[in-house]
């Protein structure tokens, strides 16, 4: 059996929940303080009004209504107007300034009557109660009564038939579902929001714990709070490996490198250039960008290390004219510091640009710089989501990654990304006869033959030059090259 769902209007949530929230039922949204519970609820109502013309009731047990209005203003939701039009009704159950004492038994019938009236008045199809834990704090000596009364509230909600969200606090990110054990009577549908601090980086995730009698994605999915779209989830678990693999090849911009990889990168493939500082990574990127000329493709360059001017100057030094590409509309360069926002936000910004610019190629210089903006786990998830996104749109990617050692070695960034790349190109220094020489080698090329030799690589005024292979030398990749006698 599969119960019916109500499309929330938050596309990313509807995606991971396989269609939205259980229709006509109550979903418990639990999270620690600052985990965006209120926003999740408000977005549910706002989307309902904006996209489906479904009215909503917002009950606050915690924050004052004026504060909520103020906090939500930044998302361009016109709550004031919606209130005037009767599409959004606040029910104020927040604590009052006055001193309150309890003497004897009571019930919450006044609240139930008000809730029901509000729902009927605007014919609400969506209800949010935020947050139920604070009613326990308001009546902290009567938790038994509150528990009994909340069961009544839950029954009222189910009788009214609106699709509702009840938010509740949690004290620990991984522990009991809610602080006051509300999950004991709101058991059917549970969503958990997390806001975990790990290695000085915040990481927000959403997990659908259960939707009774219905399918949904399992596990945690990272999300971010976007200034325009509010909560945007990056659906990791909902991604599949059903990509189209193309046999079409596109040029790397360097004919000799195309030869090494048997005719160019596959269209829609993800390719990695690994190398130490100054080994020629940015040069390969510049050539890849320039390769867009051949078939008049569009290329998006995301630079996380250098400014636009620096990039243009460097490219010009290798005989590549970025300005002309930009004028032709074949190139868009975006230079940002990785630290200005979280990886999730970068991801969403990149998606926006891709939607507008529709590039055929994406170059990132460098992934290592970008990895600074997140925890290891977050970075791994970003890479998976991002590469899957690119493959889905058949965009060919070339990324660079820095190795910490001058000769030999790999980096953590590579450890994260190498399994999902289609090809890896190594740029390594070779110390020979008191001289630093550069080398290039293709480590892997999925679905294709490739040159297995380690070749000389030099950076000249005309750009990259790929020479003969280092015959009679071994140990380049480990950083200890040795001459071996050829028999």
């Amino acid at each position, binding site marked *: 059996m599969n119960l019916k769902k109500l499309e929330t209007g938050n596309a990313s949530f509807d995606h991971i929940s396989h269609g939205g929230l259980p229709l006509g039922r109550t979903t418990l949204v639990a999270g620690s303080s600052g985990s965006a519970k209120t926003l999740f609820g408000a977005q549910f109502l706002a989307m309902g009004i904006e996209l489906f013309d479904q009215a909503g009731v917002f009950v606050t047990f915690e924050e004052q209504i004026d504060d909520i209005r103020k906090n939500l203003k930044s998302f361009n939701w016109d709550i004031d107007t919606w209130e005037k039009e009767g599409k959004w009704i606040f029910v104020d159950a927040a604590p009052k300034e006055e*001193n309150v*004492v309890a003497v004897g038994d*009571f*019930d919450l019938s*006044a609240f139930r009557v008000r809730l029901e009236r509000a729902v009927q008045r605007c014919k609400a199809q969506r209800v949010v109660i935020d947050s139920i834990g604070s009613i326990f704090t308001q009546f902290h000596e009567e938790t038994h009564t509150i528990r009994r009364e909340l069961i009544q509230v839950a029954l009222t909600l189910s009788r009214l038939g609106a699709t509702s969200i009840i938010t509740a606090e949690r004290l620990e990110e991984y522990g009991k579902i809610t602080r006051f054990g509300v999950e004991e009577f709101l058991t059917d549908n549970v969503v958990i929001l997390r806001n975990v601090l790990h290695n000085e980086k915040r990481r927000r995730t959403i997990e659908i714990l259960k939707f009774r009698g219905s399918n949904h994605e399992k596990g945690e999915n990272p999300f971010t709070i976007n200034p325009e779209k509010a909560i945007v989830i990056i659906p990791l678990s909902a991604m599949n490996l059903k990509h189209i693999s193309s046999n079409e090849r596109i040029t790397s911009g360097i004919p000799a490198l195309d030869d090494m990889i048997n005719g160019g990168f596959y269209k829609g493939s993800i390719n990695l250039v690994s190398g130490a500082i100054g080994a020629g990574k940015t040069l390969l990127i510049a050539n890849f960008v320039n390769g867009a000329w051949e078939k008049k493709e569009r290329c998006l360059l995301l630079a996380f290390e250098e400014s636009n001017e620096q990039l243009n100057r460097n490219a010009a030094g290798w005989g590549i004219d970025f300005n002309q590409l930009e004028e032709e509309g074949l190139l868009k360069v975006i230079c940002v510091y990785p630290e200005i926002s979280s990886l999730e936000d970068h991801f969403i910004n990149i998606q926006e640009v891709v939607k507008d610019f529709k590039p055929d190629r994406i170059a990132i210089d460098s992934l290592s710089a970008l990895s600074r903006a997140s925890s290891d786990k977050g970075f791994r998830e970003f890479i998976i989501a991002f590469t899957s996104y690119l493959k889905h749109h058949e965009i060919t990617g070339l990324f660079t990654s820095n190795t910490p050692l001058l000769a030999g070695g790999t980096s953590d960034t590579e450890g994260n990304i190498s399994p999902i790349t289609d090809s890896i190109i190594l740029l390594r220094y070779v110390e020979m006869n008191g001289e630093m020489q550069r080398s290039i080698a293709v480590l892997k090329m999925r679905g294709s033959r490739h040159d297995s030799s380690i070749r000389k690589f030099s950076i000249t005024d005309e750009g990259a030059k790929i020479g003969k292979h280092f015959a009679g030398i071994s140990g380049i990749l480990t950083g200890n090259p040795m001459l071996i006698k050829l028999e």
Partner: protein
Amino acid sequence: MHVFQLFINGHSPNSIEAVDTLLKICEEKLNGNYKLEIIDIQKDPDKAEEAGIIAIPTLIRMMPTPVNRIIGALNVRSRVLAGLGISSMHV
């Protein structure tokens, strides 16, 4: 002068008990010098909305200030008196 509002829900047992207790206290302690408005949320839900009432019964002491609230059936007389600021010695 004491001014009270008492919010009740029809004839629920808690409501009846609260009304009885409060009337008795007013009669015995306040010597006619009080105003009491009893509001049934079934008949007058707008007033409950306005005052942000969630629990029934809720007694609001409007005067003397500061305004305060007592919720519940008011079945412990000494605590109600304390809550309302009426001394049990008051004549």
